[in-house]
């Protein structure tokens, strides 16, 4: 699993969660919340979809790592790799 592949997975989840948003110009190093309308329930959606679709658990204390695409990739890529993905 490359970090770019990980970002693609997160973006696909966000596309379902925020279907009205234009995701073509999302800056990976900027907080997602600063670039689109995402509230706390939406972040819980990301956590839920990672759990449902990929079997990845994100403990509440680690939610901070889902702030931007870059931080998502840093945090999630090892988890995907640990699952042999």
């Amino acid at each position, binding site marked *: 699993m490359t970090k770019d592949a990980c970002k693609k997975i997160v973006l696909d989840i966000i596309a379902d*969660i*925020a*279907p*009205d948003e234009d995701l073509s110009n999302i800056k990976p190093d900027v907080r997602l919340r600063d670039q689109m*309308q995402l509230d706390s*329930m939406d972040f819980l*959606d990301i956590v*839920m979809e990672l*759990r*449902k679709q990929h079997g990845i658990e994100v403990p509440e204390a680690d939610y901070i790592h889902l702030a931007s695409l870059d931080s998502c990739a840093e945090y999630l890529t090892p988890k995907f790799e640990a699952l042999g993905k």
Partner: protein
Amino acid sequence: MSFTPARIVITGIGLTAPNGNSLPEFRQNLLNGVAGVEPFDVRYMGRLIAGVCHFDPLRYQTRKGLRVGTRAGSISIYCAQEALKDSGLAFDTVPKDRVGIYIGCTEHGNVETENEIYAISKFNYDTKYWSHYHNPRTVANNPAGEISLALGITGPAYTIGAACAAGNMGLIHAAQMLRLGEVDIAFCGGVSESIHTFGIFAGFKSQGALATHEDPKKASRPFDKGRNGIVVSEGGCVYTLERLEDARARGAKIYGEIGGYCVNSDASDYVLPNPGRQAECVRKALVNAKLTAADIHIVNTHATATPQGDIQECEAIRAVFGTGCPDTSINNTKSYIGHCMGAAGALELAGNLPSFDDLIVHPTINVDDLDPACAIDGLVLNTPKKVAKVDNILNNSFGMLGINSTLIVKRFVA
């Protein structure tokens, strides 16, 4: 001490029914005999029939709004926005804390609960996969709350649980709140998302009360000998109600005036209706409206096409209207759209309000062989009837646990 209640008028109507997504379309289909029942797949039960609404939810909601909210919320938002548009209110100048939302529901939350249980069944019933949206989607005030969010209304917004009497109850409660001075404008009526829960179909089937017919459009047949139960439908109808002085001050179009009403309870059975209490409800509504039975020109029945329920309502109507009301026509709207549950009373009233202007009574369709036990005077069957006068419309809606509601709307006369 005497109390003269304020006159309350209807100034806007927004609706979605299985055979129309606006009042003109709905009315035209009622006059043309166009039913709106179709094949419908139900989880665990396969292909059944239902009344399905085909409004465009994206007219007033974002795709995210649709994903987060409920079907009942979508129906509510569509109807409320249409009612607002129809009312001609300059809503940006309206103090939003003086607006109330009162939405009747037969039930709420079953759809989302069934969906979530089905979803976690794919994960061996592990509840960590249960949606964090479950609670906001299933709270009983959800449909009213979604209108509040959509329109930025900060006044009271809640639902009224009254089984299938709920549509009338929305209007009645709104009129009461306007008269108390609690609000200046009310969005009120009823909604139902019921077709998206298998439970209501399965429940009626177990009760022997779910309609079947090879032609879905002929399945809902109140008063016909061959009737065999209820067609479950979704739908919604939201009205704007105002005090007359406010409506006149802004030159609003007025559909009619709340004439009188009654809500009572059978206190006799969980599901079986009580004709004595139904008749009492109608009589009390007449007293409340200061009218006699002969003053009513249209009675819109609740009849759902169950073998026993229709007979019992006819018994109640016969007891009140008898043979001494030659100018009273009696019809039924469920024969077109099935039973829209919490929306039924509000929708069925709306379908009849244009009679004030066109003096036509829409018929009960699908009556090929009238049940003699339902042969009450004044029934309008299968073809519309032109009448000389429509000044008062009486709308019946009854529900389980024995709740009855009768609402009378009068022609508006300044």
